[in-house]
Every structure is written in structure tokens, then in C-alpha cells.
């Protein structure tokens, strides 16, 4: 069977990646800097795969993905701090991840319900505004440490705990790719392609929009907890507009609607800036140009001609077969 082969290949890739990273860590080949990047790479893979559900599959633009991440990060890490002497590490981390996800999902519901009922580009603006508000709330709250940040978070999700982080990342990838290949995912894609037709074939549009949005928020929240438990400190400025744009760039460069692309783009874009420190001034500028260039290319006549040629070849092949 075709599907089984795919599953085996993907499982093999995951195993090889896991073994390779573990081997590198245990073998002491990696520099400290590279070691410190292991968890962030996993975090950004989770972030871009979950955002890809909203942007690539639902076709809505969210500019507040980092804000959802921050909600999860703060709630989950506060829980970690509170329970570090009470619960075993793994239990505490597992619960923290879950709590972070739930907190982010709840906010997703609160934002999603009024906004996603509407047609048009309101989600982008509202999520952008929401991100700013969340930042200012975390800046002013005492319990989160204000602008100085929340510190003394137990470091339970560093490369030393790679197995846990890796499994969580696999879970996110697996859940999202399962979802998009299911009855529910098809409904979401149908809404993206033509919401009027989707309604006409009996798909409750608002419900599925909110579903996709909230699932993505939940996953961003989980990723946030891992992020915090890797760094040990959380600052509101880590989750600003730039952070959301960075994740968006990953999704767009990965090719919207491609989970594999999102993963690869997330890995590259997390590693690259650290490896090319010199170009850091130009990084954001390059991101901006990449966004524009991608969109212009995707909709250019050059690309259209290419796809048309490919379609023609396909059609010819098909007509030969029939």
C-alpha cells in the first residue's frame, strides 16, 4: 500500500534525525552555541507548522502567533516555577505544556469568535493589535516580572531533555499532518478555496475557522512553554511583532500549504542567523524582501507559464493512458 510506505519513510527520517542529534550531543562534537540551538529549532518547527495550519490551510492571516506563544510560555513557566519542588520534573513539564496550550487556546477562542465570523482581512489587524496588548499586559503585570522578565524558570527543556522536546515536536507535526488529511482538514481547505461553496456543501464555515485557529493557538502555547524552559527567562520583548513575522516568513518560504516546507524553513531560518552572525543587521530586511519576492513570484506570469506547461504535460500523459 502507498500510505504505509510513506509512514515508514517518515518514521525512519524521524528516527535518523533523533539518533543523529543524540549522537552529536553525546559525542561532544557540537559547540555550546549549537547545543543551545537544539531546542529553539524544535520550538520554531512547532510554531511554523501550527501557523501553517492557519495561513496555508485555512487561508487566514494571523500576525499574533508569537503572542499566543507568549501566553503559553508565561502560564506554563509560572506553573513550572510553582511546582518545581513538588512534582517530578517530567510530570511538572508535561502539565505545564498542557496548561500553556490550554491558556493560549482559550485566548484563541476569545479572539477567534468575534473576528473569524467576518469576511475579509480583519484577523490580521486584530491579531496584530492583540499581540501589542498582550505585550503591554506582560510588561505591566507584577507576577510576570514586568519588562525585566520572568526569571528562575527551571531549565527542564534544554538539549539535555532533547527526547521530550523532540517527541513533542513530532506530535505537533503528526497531529497537524493527520488533521489536514482528514474530514476536518478537508473542510478547512475547502473554506480556504471557496467559502461560499464550502457553506453550500454543508460545511459550517465559522466553526471550522475557529477550530483551526484555536488548534494552532494551542500548539503555539505548548511551544512557548518549551521555549521558556529552555532559556530560563521570559521577556515580553521576545514575543513582539517581529517574532510573529519571523514565523510567518517560515511558513511563506516553506510554501504555503506544505508542512514539510514549513519544517525545513523553520530549521534553516533558526540556524542560519546564528551561523551568519555578521549579517544580522540585514536579517529582517532580507525577510521583508523574501516575503514580497515570494508573493510576486507565486503570482507572476513566469510561474503561471511553468505550471501551465506542467499541467499540459500531465494532461497529455493522462490522455495517452485513457
Amino acid at each position, binding site marked *: 500500500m502507498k500510505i504505509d510506505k510513506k509512514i515508514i519513510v517518515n518514521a525512519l527520517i524521524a528516527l535518523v534525525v533523533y539518533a543523529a542529534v543524540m549522537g552529536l550531543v553525546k559525542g561532544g562534537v557540537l559547540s555550546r552555541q549549537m547545543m543551545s540551538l537544539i531546542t529553539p529549532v524544535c520550538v520554531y518547527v512547532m510554531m511554523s507548522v501550527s501557523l501553517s495550519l492557519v495561513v496555508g490551510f485555512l487561508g487566514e492571516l494571523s500576525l499574533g502567533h508569537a503572542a499566543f506563544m507568549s501566553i503559553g510560555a508565561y502560564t506554563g513557566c509560572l506553573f513550572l516555577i510553582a511546582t518545581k519542588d513538588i512534582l517530578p520534573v517530567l510530570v511538572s513539564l508535561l502539565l505545564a505544556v498542557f496548561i500553556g496550550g490550554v491558556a493560549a487556546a482559550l485566548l484563541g477562542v476569545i479572539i477567534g469568535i468575534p473576528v473569524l465570523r467576518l469576511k475579509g482581512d480583519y484577523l490580521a489587524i486584530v491579531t496584530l493589535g492583540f499581540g501589542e496588548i498582550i505585550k503591554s499586559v506582560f510588561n505591566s503585570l507584577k507576577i510576570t516580572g514586568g519588562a525585566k522578565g520572568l526569571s528562575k524558570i527551571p531549565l527542564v527543556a534544554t538539549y539535555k531533555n532533547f527526547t521530550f522536546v523532540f517527541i513533542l515536536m513530532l506530535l505537533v507535526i503528526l497531529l497537524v499532518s493527520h488533521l489536514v488529511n482528514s474530514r476536518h482538514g478537508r473542510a478547512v481547505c475547502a473554506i480556504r478555496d471557496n467559502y461560499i461553496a464550502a457553506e453550500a456543501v454543508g460545511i459550517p464555515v465559522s466553526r471550522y475557522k475557529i477550530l483551526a485557529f484555536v488548534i494552532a493557538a494551542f500548539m503555539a502555547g505548548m511551544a512557548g512553554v518549551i521555549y521558556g524552559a529552555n532559556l530560563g527567562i521570559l521577556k515580553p520583548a521576545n514575543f513582539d511583532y517581529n517574532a510573529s513575522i519571523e514565523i510567518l516568513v517560515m511558513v511563506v518560504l516553506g510554501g504555503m500549504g506544505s508542512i514539510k516546507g514549513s519544517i525545513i524553513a523553520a530549521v534553516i531560518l533558526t540556524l542560519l542567523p546564528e551561523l551568519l552572525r555578521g549579517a544580522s543587521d540585514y536579517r529582517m530586511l532580507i525577510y*521583508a524582501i523574501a516575503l514580497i519576492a515570494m*508573493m510576486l513570484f507565486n503570482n507572476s506570469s513566469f510561474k503561471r507559464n511553468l505550471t501551465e506547461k506542467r499541467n499540459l504535460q500531465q494532461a497529455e500523459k493522462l490522455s495517452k493512458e485513457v
Partner: protein
Amino acid sequence: MSLINAILEQLLNGLRTGSIYALIALGYTMVYGIAKMINFAHGDIIMVGAYTLYVCVSLLHLHPILAVVITILVCALLGVVIEKIAYKPLRQAPPLAVLITAIGVSYLLQNLALLIFKATPIPFASIIKVPSIKIGGVHVSGLTIVTLIVTTISMILLTLFINKTKAGRAMRAVSEDKGAAELMGVNVNQTISITFAVGSALAAVAGVLFIAQYETLLPTLGALPGIKAFVAAVLGGIGSIPGAMLGGLILGIIESLAKAYISTQLSDAIVFSVLVIVLLVKPSGLLGKMKIEKV
């Protein structure tokens, strides 16, 4: 000072900020009406305007009036160039692609400014030096007077332009029905360019007024007023020009009262809740028409 005077002063402050929002909101609404897109980069035109003014006044030592004229021209040109390069090729593209491009442009402008002028805030004293006056115990700053006069003149000019000139008529025609306008001999491309030019020129004026109030240059200074002006445009009914003016003023007053009587830190949150409430209760805004979608 009596309570009434204090409230009156807050209202005047609100009118001042609100009229700046209104100027920016006009750009959003005009572009939305004509190109059916949210021009995310519109807020950053304000930033470009503020920096241009700074370069002209502080670095080139030009006369303030000349500096303002140059600022307006630079922004208008920038608006047209952005449309030609980034948006025009995407006229037939899905809205998501246009939106992402607009964000890219916004981000590009911010980061160019960051590269050129660095992240450290640059102090820039107001070029508007008009003494304040006192009317019946209410203190009115010179900046408020100038802002109100300038925005009123801009709005009158805009209204005349839209209603009395050929280009204005073409703009209304294109926003009503692009295809029909084209068939009637309206040059759609040119009209869209003019719309971007006018909208960006208004943003430049807003930028000059805004920086006179804010007195600090930052690459991201346009983002927040930009978003708030967008809220104002939605509040007034996106696509409606009187709506943008009204929405801007109302939003400015709400913000100023919230700052004075509720909390400075929460005032932004309050402004956004206005947006959410409008979207929940009346998505078409105060003066907007509900568009019936062709199916």
C-alpha cells in the same frame, strides 16, 4: 481648575490626536475603496514622513515650510512606487497574497529606517512653534490649534478634490465599479496611482503633525498610529470618506479620555476593544454601507 475645564482640555487633546488619526484613516479608506486591500504599509508612510522632515530640517537646515512640502512629495511618490512595484502585479492574486506583500512592504520600510537611522530614538523638537492660548480658562496649546487648522484644511481640500475634479470623479467611479469605470474610459491604473499619492500625502501631513507632538523618531513610530487609524477607518465604515473622518475623531476622544480617566497603559487595549466591539455589533461601521456579496 474645574472639572469641566479638565474634561474640555481632554476633549481638545482627543480632537488633536483624533484628527491625526482621521488623516491617516482617510488613506486606508481611500485605498480600500479603490483597490479592495488593506494597505498595511500605510502606517509606515507616516514614519517615512517624519524622518524626511527630520532630514530636511535638522540635517539640511531647510526652511520648515519647504521641508513640509518636500516631505509630502516624497511620501506621495513613495506611495505610488510601492503600488506600482508591489501591489499592481497582484491585482488578480488572492487577498492573502496581497496582504502578505503589504506586510512585507511595511516591514521593509521599518527595517530600512532601522538600517539608516539605527534603533536609538532620535530627539526631534517640534517645528511648530505657536504660543498657546487660553479661552475661558481652558488652556489650548499652539500645537492643538495648528493641528486642528491643518487637518480641517486638508479635509476640505480632499472633499473638494473628490467631488469637484475629474480625477476625484474617476476615483469614485473606480471604487464603485472598476470594470464599468474602465469601459467608460477611466484610466484605472492612473486613478489608482493618484489614490495612493493622495493617501500617502495625507499620511505625510499626519506624520508632520504626529512628530511635532511625539518629538522622538523611531523606525516603528508609524505602526501604532497606523493600526489605530485603521481601527478608526473600520469604526467609521471602511471605504467611506466621511466615515474615516468621524471614526478618527471619535477614536481620538475615546483614547484621550481613557488615558486621563482609566489608565494610560490600558488605553491601547481599550482602543482595540472598540475595534472588536464594532466588528461584533456593526461590522460595516458607523457610516459604511453593508456590501452585498454577489454569489
